[in-house]
């Protein structure tokens, strides 16, 4: 499968000599909505960042749509964890979405009327057009995440990467976000989401990638989301999660 949307071979990542990701390999076709799941400290965000070459890796080949990442970077939209953003930054909602058009502009060219219109329509898509002139810190967590999704849409990418998009997000926003991601999937785009809340995992994704430092399981939701497989990754934590009412 050389034309896989994402192909990862033998990925190893470490922080200061301590192994964080061990020998992860998988091939993912286009048109999938994938959840990366696993216990705390399993290396979910690390895997995401290493795939995008945002952190150094010890070994491993990664290709996107059969090409190297360099050739395809502009087709990659990334939504960071909310904690990585300075919410007091002097920027409005519309201008935040407009940032999504920057990759297509290249150096020196400024966004014009066309880019503004595209940004506005993406803002409408996530239901945030009324807030276009607000400073981003004035929004709720869910609204902020919708704005960042609009920014990713404005980039018109082939691949979406979202790092814990549902943390601190209200239910309505969560539903809006997942509906839009499913729509993108239906249009043949590839969406990768780092996700920590097991209770929704089987509704949201069609594929799951379960890791705990190494790849535990990867495949269709119904094949991965099974007690005997999940317990391999969660080990001790798992029985206690079941007591909390997480149903599998």
């Amino acid at each position, binding site marked *: 499968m050389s034309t896989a949307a994402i192909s990862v071979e033998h990925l190893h990542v470490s922080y200061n000599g301590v192994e964080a990701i061990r020998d992860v390999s998988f091939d993912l076709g286009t048109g999938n909505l994938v959840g990366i799941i696993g216990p705390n400290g399993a290396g979910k965000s690390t895997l995401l960042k290493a795939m995008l070459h*945002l952190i150094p890796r010890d070994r491993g080949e990664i290709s996107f749509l059969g090409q190297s990442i360099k050739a395809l970077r502009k087709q990659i939209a990334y939504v960071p964890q909310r904690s*990585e*953003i300075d919410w007091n*930054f*002097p*920027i409005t909602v519309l201008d935040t979405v407009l940032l999504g058009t920057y990759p297509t502009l290249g150096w020196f060219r400024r966004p014009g009327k066309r880019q503004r219109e595209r940004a506005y329509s993406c803002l409408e898509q996530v239901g945030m057009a009324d807030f276009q002139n607000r*400073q981003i810190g004035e929004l709720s967590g869910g609204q902020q995440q919708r704005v960042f999704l609009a920014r990713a849409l404005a980039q018109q990418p082939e691949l979406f990467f979202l790092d814990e998009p549902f943390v601190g997000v209200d239910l309505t926003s969560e539903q809006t976000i997942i509906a839009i991601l499913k729509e993108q999937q239906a249009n043949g785009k590839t969406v990768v989401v780092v996700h920590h809340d097991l209770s929704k995992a089987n509704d949201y994704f069609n594929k799951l990638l379960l890791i705990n430092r190494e790849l535990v399981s990867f495949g269709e939701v119904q094949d991965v989301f099974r007690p005997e497989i999940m317990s391999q990754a969660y080990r001790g934590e798992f029985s206690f999660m079941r007591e909390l009412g997480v149903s599998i």
Partner: protein
Amino acid sequence: MEFIHAVLNYGFMQKALITAVMVGMICGVIGCFIILRGMALMGDAISHAVLPGVAISYMLGINFFIGAVITGVLTAIGIGFVSQNSRIKHDVSIGIMFTFAFAIGIILITMMKSSTDLYHILFGNVLAVRPSEMWFTLIIGVIVVGCIYLFYKELLISTFDATMSAAYGLPVRFIHYLLMTLLTMVTVASLQTVGIILVVAMLITPAATAYLLTDRLWVMLYLSALFGMLAAVGGLYFSYVYNLASGATIVVTSTVMFFLVFVFSPKQGMLMKSIRKRQQRERVRGQALNQ
């Protein structure tokens, strides 16, 4: 007025005014990115780190700008190296490296015997600006403003969301060192006006003042430049009329503006915040009474 008369009639005053205003402007502009990137301490570090470069340049008889940029950028790299390769936190690494560079600079300048030079470098003496230095400041100003104009889009996105910028292929490290280089150039240009010790105030205070007034980066850049220039004019006035060190008067003027905005800013000011807080409390209590 005595001050206006001096500006109109004395060449040294005109040069001083032009230089100070330009320094106020470029410090204000570059300062916006410094404070938004959380690099205020880095600004302080770079400004101190140019001292050994200036001293070595004097010894070798070359333009002090060259030495200053070299030691400034070297210190920036050294700071990054120490914090990335040990458990030492970034601010601690900054503290170690810039005081080291500054100490080396003081030793070099004392070895060169002349202590008046040291005094001027540390505290600035804008009234003694030479024509060559004024032109030099102008060139640096053009370079800095030009770079900010050209790279505005890239500076904005990499300051706001460095991870997304890196994900789509923007060379964020290059942009960081470009900014460090510009910062060093601005610092060198400011030596005559405010001196090494107080450059950081010109970098941070006008930008922080503007930050309290707007939610748009480009407006913040203009406001910050304006506050920087006003501080320069005001400071020069007090410096001339009361015969005080220009660096100190410029910084005090700038800080007075900051506190005015800190109290009176329509959205972020203390006054409006406390009024809004009280109104809300009365509204809630009023509703409780009506129930």
